[in-house]
């Protein structure tokens, strides 16, 4: 059966994820409203600005729908801003949304400003070769809970992790044509 995956389309690199998913033979749609969640097997929260996306999630009334989607055990993949939004980070102000889908604290812009943004090849647990990885003003994961599996690090900083149905990466798989991490995510959808 063809997998059916949505990309949260409030702000950020939405089209890039849709193209990558379609190249992998997945049925992919952009998700803006509660109705758009119908029938999805998985959801990608893309890169963008986490403050902007978080605010728009609330203004579009999507916070509850996202929580139900998560509780139903559907696969969720957060890249960069998506990682921040999926975290349980408590260091932020209450203005900023944190969904708490994966138990971890996050350092936003942890690698510095844009002039320090970089690309590299990354060792990724569960993928038997290095993956192309682009980091843009990327966050890193400061600490993780006991049920979180660490998947990749850069300079001893955690940059990818998973907990049950939730996968997060600090880099942007959608900016490369290396689909290994996206394929790894799609395998979460049974």
């Amino acid at each position, binding site marked *: 059966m063809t997998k059916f995956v949505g990309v949260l*389309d*409030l*702000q*950020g*690199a*939405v*089209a*890039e994820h849709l193209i990558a998913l379609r190249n992998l033979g997945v049925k992919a749609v952009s998700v*803006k409203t509660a109705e758009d969640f119908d029938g999805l097997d998985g959801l990608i929260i893309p*890169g*963008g*600005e986490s*403050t*902007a996306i978080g*605010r*728009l999630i609330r*203004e*579009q009334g999507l916070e509850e729908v996202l929580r139900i989607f998560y509780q139903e055990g559907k696969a969720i993949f957060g890249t*960069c*801003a998506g990682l921040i939004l999926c975290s349980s980070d408590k260091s932020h102000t209450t*203005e900023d949304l944190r969904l708490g889908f994966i138990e971890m604290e996050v350092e*936003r*812009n942890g690698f*510095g*400003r*844009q*002039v*320090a*943004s*970089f*690309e*590299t*090849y*990354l*060792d990724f647990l569960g993928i038997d070769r*290095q993956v192309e990885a*682009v*980091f*843009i*003003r990327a966050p890193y994961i400061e600490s993780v809970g006991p049920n979180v599996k660490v998947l990749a*690090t*850069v300079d001893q900083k955690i940059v990818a992790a998973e907990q049950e149905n939730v996968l997060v990466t600090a880099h*942007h798989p959608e*900016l*490369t044509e290396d689909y290994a991490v996206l394929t790894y995510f799609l395998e979460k959808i049974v």
Partner: protein
Amino acid sequence: MSEKIIGSSRVKRGMAQMQKGGVIMDVVNAEQARIAEAAGAVAVMALERVPSDIRKAGGVARMANPTIVEEVMNAVSIPVMAKARIGHISEARILEAMGVDYIDESEVLTPADEEYHLLKSEYVVPFVCGCRDLGEALRRIGEGASMLRTKGEPGTGNIVEAVRHMRKVNSQINVLTTKSNDELMTFARDIGAPYELVKEVKELGALPVVNFAAGGVATPADAALMMSLGADGVFVGSGIFKSESPEKFARAIVQATTNFENYELLAKLSKDLGEPMKGIEISHLQSQERMQDRGL
């Protein structure tokens, strides 16, 4: 892990891709920057004056005082952009050294060089530039711009020029995609664009970098219009902080940009906002007051 590569075109263009569907707001101090961030701006542009005040002040408009840029950088966690004069190598290098996230080589400031733009490919920091047509767009990309925007007519609160520039670029791309390969060199010559980039745009059917709307956005409906015309996102200059209630305008323009085809919501967003910035009819501008004619 292998070696880290900084300043690659993928890293520089990627930063602009992360801004898509968002609103970048002009601010002149930390307080405005915080209002913009809280309203959901994806970045702020740190300036000494917004474009409509630059028009009023007259004289030479330069890069903002580093004190203002630093104040804004310290106030918010979203990216901070700043403007350098066209061709002003030193202003650009100063902003890069300060760690600004994006530089706008901008016609809003008085050009430092009437002949040459910056060779932007030489910098680690990415650049955005204005364009009015496809030739100008591809010349800027050829110099290394990682992001484009319409020039519009800054500080007028009049959307007509931004519309003209967005339509022009997109219709030229449409024409280009219908050309056969043996026509491309002549097409490149006629629009004054690098041949290799003309070939690339034909293959992609689109620009290889993000293209935002800028120069005249004053209301939520203006932002929605530009998104409908194919803009990847919106810059708002004077439109926020020269309106009657900046917080309301900022939030409404952010929501309008995301929901640009939801007209019932747009109607709701446009209510009770107070007065937008006062606009200027373009034909009332003297030719030397037209910022879009600077740096072609």
